[in-house]
């Protein structure tokens, strides 16, 4: 933060605009959202008269320019993070103009992932807001020649308490700008009782635009003279073009040329996959031309990848001892003592993000510089990747972040933006690369397929005396380094090395698995399969012991305490947060279980035949979520979800409405995982292609009523975009068991 609190000297705004010729040309065509964003010549905040931080600028007319440095993909990050600053500044949200930051290290980490935008932004935004507020307060005191201590802010004005004199922020901006920027130690933060927006929230800054077709997504970016590209990627990861014939595509009306793109150098990282691009004067012509391309491929080693065989290998690996990643007590000795031994295996296939807006980007290469408009979760990764692909400094890449039509982790990987830049350089024109739905499904960075093996020994009361858990999955690290076959501490910390069950002998292991497709982050990542195994198995033990599921779950969690995870799993990263600020607190976990159960009427309602309730709890991204799912299963085995009750403890919640929406959405996302999601490969080629063979939940399949209960908490803010997902699948499957007696150990249901 201290680096970004700078009294930035005023730069020539108009001069900056003129120097970015592409922008001037595009003003007519590019939606306002895109061109009103910051340019390489600086942001509106920079050019406001008072701009004590890169995140805020105040004009003499009182307009407050706030910079949204994280991406908007539906989680409200673009609104919620600046809202924190507005609160601490005591600014009127109606007088705030948001602008989207370009990729620039001066904003620090801009990755919108890991459910950490509010968590990271909380202190930074409050500091920036308090800094500007103090400067305005001092300017007012100086103007009135009164002590600063007699002055305070009150919604966009500074008030002199004794005399009740008032001065607006705009009126004070010039005088405040002449003052030195205060040091952090001088700042006074508003107490919780004075918060205007934190805890109350605001609807999305873009809400009206989103309902009127005016919002600017990556798919909507336009520049004069641009052409469209569709790319035939190698059908197998690592495949290469042997030869191709473009006579037929070039005869398609609108198609102008074809351009080969070189294959990546392993590891694939964020490099484009390679292939052949078809360039046309509209998207459809590019699609049509591509269908007529005749490419001969050298498929390479991954052509051996068959999901059926691979599944067996994963399951066999999971049955054998793996790398110990957490150990408490002595599991082997405890198993040797006997007791009732339970074993179970679980499996979840690869999943595709299937964002409604497929990958798309518009790039304009001129004289060694690139301007790119992309729906990206990581504009700095766009700069780096394009810089590497084109052999230019990343500083020569200006990345404008458009709205994202969904992200879920897919748009953290900027391969598609690099494709647009490569093709713009090759054609000498602005190029928009548009992935079809088939491209999106067939060439993703998939959620890892995973097999889990679980074993427990129970005493006579049904309490586990020993618990062994093993997970095997191709790791995300394989995207970045060759021969990476074990999960790293980050992935294993996602619900595996931090399971807070109160069991005297506990061991977590991880087995080796090679990747044959690109593996990437997917909303809540490894928590999905880890929670599925742990929470399903916990429920199996409850039933085996003849115990109530909620009561048993609470007993497994054990008494309220802080779990010292690092004592048994030294590499656990606690989501990059300190265990002092964000300890694993079982009191909070118990509370969400109790709250969800109470709200659902657990044990108090008589359910009809074929109906059942299931519960699961999981801590991810430092947030505690328990969910009770009610299902109805008909004679054909068709599962309906009439009700979901979810309790969330995410610490201080900035935007409760957005939080509720995220938890509702997570239930639908989870429904897709349970019902139908499966990506499989044969001969290295992905077998699915569109929503017919990779279905996602529709309205008639989604939960009918999702109720969300937010725990009032003073703990520091944690994540909300992802944590709703992990407990959902096990809660549904536990409910199906309660309704039918059928235990689901493999997803999706459509394959079971």
């Amino acid at each position, binding site marked *: 933060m201290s680096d970004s609190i700078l009294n930035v000297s005023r730069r020539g705004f108009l001069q900056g605009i003129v120097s970015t010729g592409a922008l001037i040309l595009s003003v007519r065509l590019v939606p306002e959202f895109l061109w009103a964003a910051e340019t390489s010549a600086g942001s509106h905040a920079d050019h406001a008269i008072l701009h004590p931080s890169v995140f805020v600028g105040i004009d003499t007319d009182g307009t407050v320019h706030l910079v949204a440095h994280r991406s908007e993909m539906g989680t409200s990050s673009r609104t919620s993070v600046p809202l924190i600053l507005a609160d601490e500044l005591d600014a009127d949200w109606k007088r705030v103009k948001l602008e989207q930051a370009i990729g620039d290290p001066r904003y620090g980490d801009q990755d919108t992932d890991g459910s950490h935008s509010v968590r990271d932004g909380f202190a930074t935004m409050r500091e920036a807001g308090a800094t500007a507020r103090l400067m305005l307060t001092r300017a007012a005191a100086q103007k009135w020649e009164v002590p600063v201590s007699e002055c305070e802010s009150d919604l966009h004005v500074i008030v002199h308490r004794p005399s009740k004199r008032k001065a607006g922020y705009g009126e004070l901006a010039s005088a405040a700008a002449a003052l030195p920027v205060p040091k952090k130690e001088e700042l006074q933060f508003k107490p919780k009782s004075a918060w205007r927006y934190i805890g109350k929230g605001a609807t999305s800054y873009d809400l009206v635009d*989103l309902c009127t077709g005016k919002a600017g997504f990556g798919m909507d970016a336009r520049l004069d003279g641009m052409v*469209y590209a569709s790319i035939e990627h190698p059908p197998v990861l690592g495949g290469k073009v042997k030869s191709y014939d473009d006579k037929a595509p070039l005869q398609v009306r609108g198609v102008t040329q074809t351009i080969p793109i070189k294959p990546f150098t392993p590891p694939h990282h964020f490099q484009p996959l390679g292939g052949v691009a078809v360039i046309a004067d509209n998207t459809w012509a590019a699609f049509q031309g591509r269908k007529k391309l005749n490419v001969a491929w050298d498929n390479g080693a991954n052509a051996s990848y068959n999901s059926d065989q691979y599944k067996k290998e994963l399951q066999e690996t999971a049955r054998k001892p793996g790398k110990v990643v957490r150990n408490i007590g002595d599991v082997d000795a405890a198993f040797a003592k006997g007791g009732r031994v339970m074993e179970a295996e679980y499996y979840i296939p690869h999943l595709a993000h299937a964002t409604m807006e497929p990958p798309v980007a518009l790039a304009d290469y001129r004289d060694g510089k690139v301007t790119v408009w992309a729906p990206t979760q990581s504009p700095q990764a766009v700069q780096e990747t394009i810089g590497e692909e084109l052999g230019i400094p990343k500083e020569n890449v200006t990345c404008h972040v458009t709205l994202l039509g969904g992200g879920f982790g897919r748009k953290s990987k900027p391969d598609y933006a690099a494709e647009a830049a490569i093709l713009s350089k090759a054609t000498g024109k602005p190029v928009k690369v548009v992935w079809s739905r088939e491209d999106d499904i067939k060439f993703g960075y998939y959620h890892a397929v995973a097999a889990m093996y679980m074993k427990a020994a129970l005493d006579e009361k049904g309490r586990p005396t020993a618990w062994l858990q093993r997970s095997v999955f191709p790791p995300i690290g394989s995207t970045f380094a060759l021969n990476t076959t074990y999960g790293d501490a980050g992935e294993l910390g996602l619900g595996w090395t931090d399971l807070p069950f109160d069991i005297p002998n506990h061991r977590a292991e991880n087995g080796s698995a090679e990747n044959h497709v690109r593996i990437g982050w997917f909303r809540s990542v490894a928590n999905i399969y880890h929670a599925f195994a742990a929470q399903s198995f916990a429920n199996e033990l409850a039933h085996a012991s003849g115990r109530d599921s909620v009561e048993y779950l609470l007993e497994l969690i054990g008494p309220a305490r802080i779990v010292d995870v690092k004592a048994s799993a030294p590499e656990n990263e606690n989501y990059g947060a300190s265990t002092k600020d964000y300890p694993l607190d079982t009191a909070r976990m118990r509370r969400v279980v109790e709250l969800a159960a109470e709200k659902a009427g657990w044990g108090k309602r008589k359910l009809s035949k074929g109906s059942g309730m299931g519960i699961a709890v999981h801590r991810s991204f430092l947030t505690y979520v328990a969910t009770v799912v009610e299902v109805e299963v008909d004679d054909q085995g068709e599962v309906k979800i009439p009700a979901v009750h979810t309790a969330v403890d995410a610490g201080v919640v900035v935007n409760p409405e957005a939080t509720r929406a995220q938890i509702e959405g997570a239930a639908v996302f989870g429904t897709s995982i349970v019902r139908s999601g499966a990506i499989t490969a044969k001969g290295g080629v992905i077998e699915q292609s569109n929503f017919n063979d990779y279905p996602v939940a529709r309205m008639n399949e989604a939960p009918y009523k999702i109720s969300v209960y937010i725990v009032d908490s003073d703990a520091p803010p944690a994540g909300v975009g992802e944590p709703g997902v992990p407990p959902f699948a096990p809660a549904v499957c536990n409910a199906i068991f309660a309704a039918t007696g059928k235990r689901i150990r493999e997803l999706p249901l459509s394959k079971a």
Partner: protein
Amino acid sequence: MMHIKVNGVEHSFDGDPDLPLLWYLRDVLGLTGTKFGCGIALCGNCTVHQDGKAIRSCVTSVGATAGKEIITIEAISKGGLHPVQQKWIEYNVPQCGYCQSGQIMQAISLLKEKPKPSDEDIEGGMAGNICRCGTYQRIRAAIKAAAGENV
């Protein structure tokens, strides 16, 4: 030369008559409110109105729309917001928002046919429109509210 009427304006077009309406709207006319989601009428993101009824513009050729009235999200309301859009805002429906143009166009068409839709009517009418963010519960509530129901 074809004549296509979009949002009350008549355009002449001498390109490929097989060009899907979606790409004509987006790439030729610059009406980007209508979205591309799947290209084969499975997701409903591209929904527009043809003579007042919802159609999937990704599988409707420009040639087939000659003599018909096409209305897109940009012109669904003559000044201000359509009542369905107002309910969408009131119920804070969108998350990422990419699918919502299509959802709104579908909902308006549904309400024209069934002014007081039941849950089944709503599910039947809206099941063709995918929202990956999962805003279905709010969509249902907004439709009911637009139909004058207390929700």
